[in-house]
């Protein structure tokens, strides 16, 4: 397998299947493919950038066809390369697959930031999707864009949020890890023979390497020096199979025989070391990362076996036992960590090495120096200390600064406008007023309550006016104060009113954002908008007429704010137009900017 960044092979280049082929060299490098023909005079030199390659096809090894690799580029043209033998072709194919995988990520990112001139197909699709899903949006779109009042770009300019969110979501999502445990992979058994078959995918390999660092280390150590990959996995799954049979005696026996098998059967040393380190670094004050309870299997009669049974095991075979909780915890920790490496490769070795590198880096980061340790211990003792056993601490006192509350209240007085009037005059007024008041009080003390307190005809008038108030209020507001006017209108009217409301909002938004008018484009846009608004205004008037008489008042109440907003817009338009014609001094009577 070519480990370097370049592959060079002797090939024959065919532009089509019938072509006999031009012999030459094919050089594949990162990002680029170069074909140089043997004959310098021939003009079939080819340079293909990997990002232009859309797909590749190849002939199968078992068939009688010669080893061909067919590359199709984005424009549809295909290049066929005939190799000397199959391994060559496979090498090139793998290289190109890798390069294609890297290029896949980029087009996704560039689709998000398209210039306004070129719309990518993706964005158009997004727009259609949004229109399909939201009927209100579709109606607005039909009304304005198809009648040429607004252009497409303007319509979507205010809805960037709708468009942007979707595409960001698509490109940035990372696929996480499966939460199914590795031990859940059951082999398929052949009923007839005594064989079990395990299916191994790169995903599973990644998971195994991430969860069991000992296995990963063993892989790096043994393959390909001591055994092939296939043998390695066979041994691994044999160990798993032994576990599943729960036969610790057999496991011990086999481990004694086969040293490599023993690696899989023993508890994971690397993992144990990591866990011990974590335990040492536990901060009793608030760290919940590692719990000593994770490691209770040293106690007798503890630990649930993977299948939920509890077996008594002889002490010398104890290390060949694993508990379900350990597996669960390890798996959960790995899933929560997420994918720590980005390499998607068929090559198991690369995966293993990448994982080891990552773990080493994180270990180096996590290693604390002596000073940091001391500091941590000191902090722990300080936080976990008992208050009544401490020596009395005299902290330096800082004086309180309480603001004068009068500042707040007095600032509320503010600067009341002082219009000077005769001060004396006012005082006299006040004095007189108080005098009158006191007289009244004396009067009532002397004479008592007035008799009759209230005349009957006045009382009757008050009653009737109150009753009238209550009944008219009921007519306007409705029996149920929570019911809205809209619900009492017939459905078609209600829909029409709401639609007018949204379309007026849209028009007004574009109208007001176009001011102040600085370019001709804006001028025409405002003109078109004004026509559309006048149109809507007349439609509103028509609607008011057409509605039934008993609902007419409510509808006109609903419609009034819309008309007011439109009136304000018209006023502004007229005023602006007048200002322009006045400014240009009448030389350009058409209001040309």
């Amino acid at each position: 397998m070519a480990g370097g960044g370049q592959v060079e092979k002797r090939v024959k280049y065919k532009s089509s299947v019938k072509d006999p082929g031009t012999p030459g060299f094919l050089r594949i490098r990162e990002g680029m493919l170069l074909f140089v023909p043997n004959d310098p005079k021939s003009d079939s030199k080819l340079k293909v950038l990997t990002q232009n390659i859309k797909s590749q096809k190849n002939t199968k090894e078992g068939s009688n066809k010669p080893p061909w690799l067919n590359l199709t580029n984005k424009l549809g043209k295909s290049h066929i390369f005939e190799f000397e033998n199959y391994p060559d072709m496979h090498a090139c194919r793998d290289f190109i697959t890798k390069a294609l995988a890297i290029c896949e990520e980029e087009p996704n990112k560039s689709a998000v930031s398209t210039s306004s001139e070129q719309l990518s197909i993706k964005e158009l699709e997004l727009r259609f999707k949004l229109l399909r899903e939201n009927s209100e949006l579709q109606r607005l779109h039909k009304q304005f864009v198809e009648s040429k009042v607004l252009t497409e770009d303007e319509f979507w300019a205010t809805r960037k949020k709708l468009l942007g969110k979707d595409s960001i979501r698509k490109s940035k999502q990372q696929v996480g890890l499966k939460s199914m445990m590795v031990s859940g992979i059951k082999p398929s058994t052949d009923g007839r023979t005594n064989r079990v078959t395990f299916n191994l995918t790169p995903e599973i390999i990644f998971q195994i390497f991430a969860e069991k660092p000992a296995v990963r280390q063993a892989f790096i150590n043994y393959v390909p020096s001591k055994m092939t990959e296939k043998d390695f996995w066979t041994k691994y799954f044999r160990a798993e199979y032994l576990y599943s049979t729960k036969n610790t005696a057999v496991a011990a026996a086999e481990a004694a025989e086969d040293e490599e098998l023993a690696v899989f059967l023993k508890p994971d040393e690397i993992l144990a070391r990591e866990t011990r380190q974590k335990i040492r670094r536990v901060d009793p004050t608030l760290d919940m990362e590692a719990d000593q309870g994770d490691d209770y299997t040293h106690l007798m009669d503890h630990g649930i076996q993977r299948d939920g049974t509890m077996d008594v095991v002889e002490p010398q075979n104890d290390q060949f036992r694993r508990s379900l909780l350990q597996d669960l915890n390890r798996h959960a920790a790995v899933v929560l960590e997420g994918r720590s490496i980005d390499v998607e490769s068929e090559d198991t070795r690369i995966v293993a090495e990448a994982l080891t590198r990552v773990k080493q880096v994180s270990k180096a980061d996590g290693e604390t120096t002596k000073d940091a340790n001391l500091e941590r211990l000191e902090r722990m003792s300080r936080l976990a200390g008992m208050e009544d056993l401490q020596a009395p601490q005299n902290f330096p006192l800082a004086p309180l600064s309480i603001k004068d509350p009068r500042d707040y209240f007095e600032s509320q007085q503010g600067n009341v406008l002082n219009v000077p009037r005769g001060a004396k005059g006012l005082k006299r007024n006040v004095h007189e007023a108080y005098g009158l008041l006191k007289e009244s009080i004396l009067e009532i003390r002397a004479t008592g309550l007035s008799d009759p307190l209230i005349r009957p005809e006045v009382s009757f008038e008050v009653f009737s006016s109150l009753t009238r108030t209550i009944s008219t209020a009921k007519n306007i507001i409705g029996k149920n104060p929570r019911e809205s006017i809209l619900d009492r209108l017939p459905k078609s009217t209600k829909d029409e009113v709401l639609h007018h409301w949204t379309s007026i909002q849209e028009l007004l938004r574009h109208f007001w954002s176009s001011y102040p008018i600085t370019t001709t484009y804006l001028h025409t846009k405002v003109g078109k908008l004004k026509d559309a608004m006048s149109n809507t205004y007349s439609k509103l008037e028509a609607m008011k007429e057409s509605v039934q008489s008993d609902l007419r008042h409510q509808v006109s109440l609903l419609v009034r704010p819309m008309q007011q907003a439109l009136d304000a817009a018209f006023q502004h338009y007229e005023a602006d137009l007048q200002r322009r014609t006045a400014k240009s001094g009448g030389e350009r009577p058409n209001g040309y900017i």
Partner: protein
Amino acid sequence: MPAIASKQYSDDVSLLVLLLDTNPLFWSTTSITFSQFLSHVLAFLNAVLGLNQLNQVVVIATGYSSCDYIYDSSLTSNHGNFESNGTGMPAIFGSLLKKLEEFVTKDEELSKEEVSEDRIPSCLLSGSLSMALCYIQRVFRSGHLHPQPRILCLQGSPDGPEQYVAVMNSIFSAQRLMVPIDSCYIGVQNSAFLQQASYITGGVHHTPKQLDGLFQYLTTIFATDLHSRGFVQLPKPIGVDFRASCFCHKKTIDMGYICSVCLSIFCEHHKKCSTCGSVFGQSKLDDASSASDKKRKAPST
């Protein structure tokens, strides 16, 4: 107060706190005299006390420069025999009137000391609202068996915009305590404070047209206790005037600037908020000249 058996407590026991407007500047300009007004009010109080044996009434006088408690029906000293001069005055209100007179004298003294700035001749509504709420809070804490309190504000003086903040604070406290503030406005202009108070706290606001029928208005609308309001329809106003007053000049405004930190309202652009001290950014409408410098996006049509 003697201990009351709990089975005597029915749903409609109420505590009415009446805020009486005694602003002399207002009363010197009305069609109805203060004594006529007082007789309507006193008869109304009598009626409320007659509705239920356990009803309580508290009267707070809202003066020009001060406020004070005038009457509390739960105090036993009020049940005594006062001033039975053979006049038509029910003995029960003898002390009320006496205290009212003392209050007016005191208020006059205080207003003499005050610098005669030219403020709107409003009464001290914020002060009396606060006093009412304090009393109600004390009632709440007296035990789980207490009458349902409500506040009735009888006012004719116009709103004093310098009291806006204090009044709004009291209104929100009342809303929190779930105490409705009813308001009966007998003045000339509309009172935005009272409308807002009743709207926010769930009380009833009314502006009587005929002041000589005031007693009828009071007994029809404002005598209903809180429990009965669930099924009795009271006249409600159609709209509410929600205008605020600005914090700098105390003018009533309907469009202004608001500090995004403390929500204080200003009528003109300031560099700094006077309540919370946060510095404002440059206003977008400040320089119209910079608008033409802005690049306008003009996509190709």
